[in-house]
């Protein structure tokens, strides 16, 4: 996918919805997981890193991707879960590179293991993929100060689109807020630094909205 460039102009608020689909690939042990990762379409790898935020979930996200969570909870392999949990999807320019990193870690673990870690048939890993449907909310802002009133009104899926999905489509894996604010050159660089410290993986979308709202309120409150 072509990466979007930083541009200075109005900030258009968009929203999104995911159409999730089964791929037919599944794994019951670590070797099958490895083989499926190798053969499944790259979009499915992305889904299991990014889309968890939009799925029904209750627990605190202990791991930032489904592969790590499955290794921990189904295979009961804490070592592998910790290693997979540290993969940062924003550090890869291509999904193929991230896929290779996953394969390297799993193969290393297979080399270390005397027995292939296994789980029961009802705890299999099912590979899912998705299509993202993006639509306009028909709201546009021109002045960054408007973020103070805008962000609390954004839907969770709009937060997902602008703060998480953005990292897969912008140069430098930026969220859309920073991508827009950098267009004002040095003026909002300090605000961008604050935003860059907000880790998207360990909060739910409503929590992220609240944290973003606080950041913008504090920042523009102080500047007024």
């Amino acid at each position, binding site marked *: 996918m072509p990466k979007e460039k930083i541009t200075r102009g109005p900030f258009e608020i968009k929203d999104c*919805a995911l*159409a999730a689909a089964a791929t*037919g690939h599944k794994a019951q042990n670590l070797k099958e997981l490895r083989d499926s990762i190798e053969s499944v379409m790259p979009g499915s790898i992305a889904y299991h890193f990014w889309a968890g935020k939009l799925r*029904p979930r209750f627990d605190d996200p202990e791991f930032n991707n489904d592969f790590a969570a499955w290794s921990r909870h189904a295979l009961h392999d804490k070592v592998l879960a910790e290693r997979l949990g540290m993969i940062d999807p924003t550090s890869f320019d291509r999904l193929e590179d991230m896929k290779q990193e996953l394969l390297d870690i799993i193969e290393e673990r297979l080399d270390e293991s005397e027995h292939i870690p296994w789980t029961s048939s009802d705890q299999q890993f099912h*590979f899912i993929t998705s299509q993202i*449907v993006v639509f306009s*909310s028909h709201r546009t802002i021109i002045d960054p100060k408007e973020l103070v009133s805008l962000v609390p009104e954004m839907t969770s899926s709009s937060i997902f689109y602008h703060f998480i999905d953005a990292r897969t489509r912008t140069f430098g894996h930026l969220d859309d807020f920073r991508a827009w604010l950098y267009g004002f050159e040095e003026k909002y660089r300090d605000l961008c630094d604050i935003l860059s410290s907000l880790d998207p993986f360990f909060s739910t979308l409503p929590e992220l909205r609240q944290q973003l709202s606080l950041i913008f309120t504090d920042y523009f409150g102080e500047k007024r």
Partner: protein
Amino acid sequence: MTSALDRYSEICGPDVIDQLRQLVAPLKGAKVIHVNSTRKGGGVAEILAKLVPLKRELGIDVSWEVIEGNADFFKCTKGFHNALQGNKVEIPRSLLENYENTNRNNAEGLRDRLEEADIVFIHDPQPAPLLKYCSNRKGKWFWRCHIDASKPYRPVWKYLRSFVAGYDASIFSLAAFAQPLPHIEYLIAPSIDPLSEKNLELDRSEVDSVVSNLGVDLERPVMTQVSRFDIFKDPVGVIQAYRLTKKFIPTLQLILAGGEAADDPEAMTVLDEVRTAANNDPDIHIMLLPPDAHRSINAIQRASDIVLQKSLKEGFGLTVTEAMWKGKPVIGGDTGGIRIQVVNHQTGFLVNTPEGAALRARYLLFHTELLQEMGEKARSFVRENFLLTRHLREYLTIMVSLLHGRGDRIELR
């Protein structure tokens, strides 16, 4: 007059409804038809009764058709249902011929509308062969499977597969339920309607009145399972769990409430087994409720201290969602869609045996403050994930997805 969408906006928030209005824009004017086999009874009919008017209010030209069949037709499709859930069911050739003839006859009356529709949703195996009899169809056809088909009885699946393989897409409730098919297989979890008679808020006085009229003592603890009298719901296992719990909590009462469904001829056989197992225990209340007893079910769930759904197989388990929406922790069978709703120690407990269910029931009835806390979490979880508005959004999304072709990303203008 307040529209239905306005009423949902009060519960889910206006942003959720705005989102639906934006998502539906490319579908305005599209002709959509849903087809199933019963207008009353069972989760599918309940969902369609709500989804269809909402889609209409959003500007989609949508209708809901119900195919008709005789007793042998429903005997056959009940066999399909059990077989898809893994039961070894041999279906006689004569019943299969009747099944195909019934669909052919129904197609005669529906063909013009189905062939003209832009999008057709065929629900479950009952009307699946309709596609075969609509050779001039112009729209996209979805086969919506509401059943846990993760380990189907293969000969029956092989037979049904020949009817569903030709669809443009299928929809399953969970990835684990999907069977390999030569088209895209979407995933949509079901939902409940917070404004339906079965789920809307009731006054305490109404709850007390309904339940005491059923002979239940309001001063004593109640555990309940609401579901069809179906072997996969394990009502006899629930009675065993009740007896094990009652040894420690002698005042305990059990309600087993099941609705009748026009397409479920086996219910009476299972009901007889349940009555035998209950052995005239005055604290076991077995209720066979008519399909429209939604308000009574609502009251029963609200009056219960604990709700069980001890299924051995479960598609999704909407009764679990309903109970959680009413702030009840659920002790559920560790199977199917119950797993994505019941989170151990958070919204309830997953169990595998009557003994496991009894242990968790004792635990919750002993820790009443925890019971309350888990119930509140359960309600919040349903609000975020399993209300009708989320379900509708996903239906709209897959319709847009299929009409706009493949690719990872669709940008609507």
